[in-house]
């Protein structure tokens, strides 16, 4: 291996922590601040290793009588002096060093569709404006929740009933936002409260809006079970989006990894929720189950059936597999 070389200092997960480009030799490595490469690891001696070039141009690593020695790994062998090969990995103390040549080929560049997000820049800079936006979005969310409650109440409605219905949800939103802000603070050293709050507020509003659209969809096309399919998908999508947004802002994960984690998390959460409700549902309901949605008459868009047609298509309702039922009962 010939100069110039690149020395990569790895963390304990094998990820690159630092890269040093070396043009001149010898190079001293150790914990002392006099070294060319300073390793912040208490198991590394003050003067631990020296790199130099021999007469043939090979790079040699020499152990400077360190306390914990110089090792190659796979297999683990202690060396006093070692010829460095390309991509060689050595261990001093608890730190791994890897040697690369200038010709090391890097992986393909990720193609980022679009420019850096203005939204992202806006939300992560400044303090007052994001908080004003947070307030607006949360008021919007509260308004949507109240409107929903208002239309769902068939008794007389008073304002305090609406507040009582919405307040618990708002409290949950604030706590949720705070938890993610703390996670952000721990991992990225930034609080991002407004970002997390706006994210969850917008998603919740969107969620209500979509669910409402599905109701109208089912009213227009009264097919039993159609709405249920859409609801499962929207539950999945919204949960995944929720985690994606929070994780993007509070971790250093790459986009692809974030997508993967949020999809898996959402599938798990939604899956478990549906599983629990499936297990808890009574084995035999004995109750009629049909699409009972009603919206104002103007939303009837399908051509209605004649009475005769309606009943002509109902014959299949009378076809029960009694033998199969019988077998299930015996089980």
């Amino acid at each position, binding site marked *: 291996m010939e100069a110039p070389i690149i020395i990569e200092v790895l963390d304990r997960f094998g990820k690159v922590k630092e890269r040093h480009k070396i043009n001149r030799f010898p190079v001293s490595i150790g914990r002392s601040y006099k070294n060319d490469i300073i390793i912040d690891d208490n198991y590394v001696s003050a003067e631990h290793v020296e790199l130099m070039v021999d007469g043939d141009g090979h790079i040699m690593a020499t152990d400077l009588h360190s306390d914990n020695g110089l090792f190659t790994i796979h297999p683990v062998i202690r060396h006093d002096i070692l010829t460095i090969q390309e991509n060689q990995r050595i261990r001093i103390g608890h730190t791994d060093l890897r040697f690369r040549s200038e010709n090391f080929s890097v992986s393909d560049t990720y193609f980022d569709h679009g420019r850096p997000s203005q939204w992202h820049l806006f939300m992560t800079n400044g303090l007052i404006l994001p908080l004003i936006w947070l307030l607006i979005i949360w008021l919007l969310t509260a308004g949507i929740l109240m409107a929903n409650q208002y*239309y769902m109440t*068939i008794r007389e409605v008073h304002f305090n009933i609406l507040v009582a219905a919405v307040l618990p949800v708002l409290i949950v939103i604030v706590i949720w936002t705070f938890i993610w802000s703390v996670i952000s603070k721990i991992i990225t050293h930034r609080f991002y409260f407004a970002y997390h709050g706006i994210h969850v507020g917008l998603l919740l509003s969107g969620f209500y809006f979509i669910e409402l659209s599905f109701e109208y969809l089912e009213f227009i096309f009264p097919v039993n079970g159609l709405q249920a399919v859409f609801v499962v998908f929207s539950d999945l999508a919204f949960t995944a989006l929720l985690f994606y947004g929070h994780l993007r802002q509070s971790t250093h994960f790459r986009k692809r990894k974030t997508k993967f984690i949020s999809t898996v998390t959402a599938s798990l959460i939604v899956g478990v929720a549906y599983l629990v409700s499936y297990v808890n549902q009574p084995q035999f309901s*004995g109750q009629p*189950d049909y*699409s009972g949605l009603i919206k*104002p008459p103007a939303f009837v868009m399908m051509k209605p059936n004649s009475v005769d047609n309606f009943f002509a298509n109902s014959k299949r309702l009378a076809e029960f597999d009694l033998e199969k*039922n019988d077998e299930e009962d015996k089980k």
Partner: protein
Amino acid sequence: MRSTQAQTTIKLLNVNNLLIKFLCTAILSLTSAFSFASTEEVFEQYQDSLLQIRIIDKSTNSKSTIGSGFFIDQYGTIATNYHVISKHVFKPEQYRVEYISQDGAVHAAELIHIDVIHDLALLKGDEVDTPLLKISNKSLNKGVRIYTLGNPLDLGMTIVEGTYNGLTKDTMNERILLSGALNSGMSGGPSVIEDGTVIGVNVATAGNGIGFLVPQKFLTALVQEAKIKKPKDFMNVIQQQLLSNQAGYLDVLSNTPFPTKSLGNYTVPAKIASYINCWGDSKQDNEPFRKSNSYCATKNNIYLNNSISTGTIRYNHQYFEDVEMGRFRFAHLVQTYFSNPSASLSGGKENFTEYNCKSDYVTQQNMLLKTAICLKEYKKFPGLYDMILIFTTLNENDKALISTLALAGVSYENAVKFSKHYLGSFAWKRP
């Protein structure tokens, strides 16, 4: 002195008391002497043909149901109520039938034939040579004295006196109305008139000293049928009887126009038969809407066992008017009532399948309806269904009519025919 005076007064009082007591007793005995004489005559003459019927749980060998019954011929044919022995009909492997004669002896009995519609059953016991109760062929006048024999509350044979009050006109199946106290254990016993002939079989009580009897003609018919048919599969017998019975009353109803009444701008079916009861109410009670309710149902059902009663016709109209809700909230109100049918038919997994439903938009004359129909099948009687038909009108933003029809134990064809006729009897006058 004082004490003697007091004692005398007490004595006098006692004498007075005794006198009053004596007089009362004398009057009472006189009145009862007349009635008891004839009652006991009837009782003694035929007591050997009266029986207690018992349904015994084979696993625990304990009494599960008791009722009464009586011999109708010397070959040991016993008449009783179907509902007394219904457990044996549905689960012969778990329940057996036995009867106790007046001398206390226990005999096994075998099921010969049943009539679920009129609640009658025939059993076969041991041959007998006691005097038998004959079936009456007289037509009765109101006020005729009737002696109801049976075994109430497991206390031994008793006799209750009552009067004939004619045939009920408002039950689906003809019954004799009796003023007299029937108890539960008297079910299946005979009711006789003074000449000792049976005019009916005790079947039910409505409380308040009102009882019902199955007229003897149905017993005669069942006895005749039992001579020809010897059924083995009683589930099939029940199914056939239910089907032919409903063919009778549902056909009549489906082929004549329903009497109607108006509810808001709508015309709706009213009391469609004498055996159907209707009642209604309307209220606002501080609600942001007005609601009027009209509810109709058959007065009695056909009892099959303690978890299935069938033959029910039930319908309900709910009329809503918006006061201050607005069309979107009003629609939600209608949805709340439309998706929870008020006239439903319950039933467990053991006897029924789950409901199969569909819903769609339907036009009927000038009305637009969202209609749903649901069917569930009787597991033991394939081809018999419980049906729910429910619709709401979608004609106006601020008024809606929700109507529910529930039919129990009908064939698919009868359900559809009746439902079409039902839907066809609604009308809407555009405001």
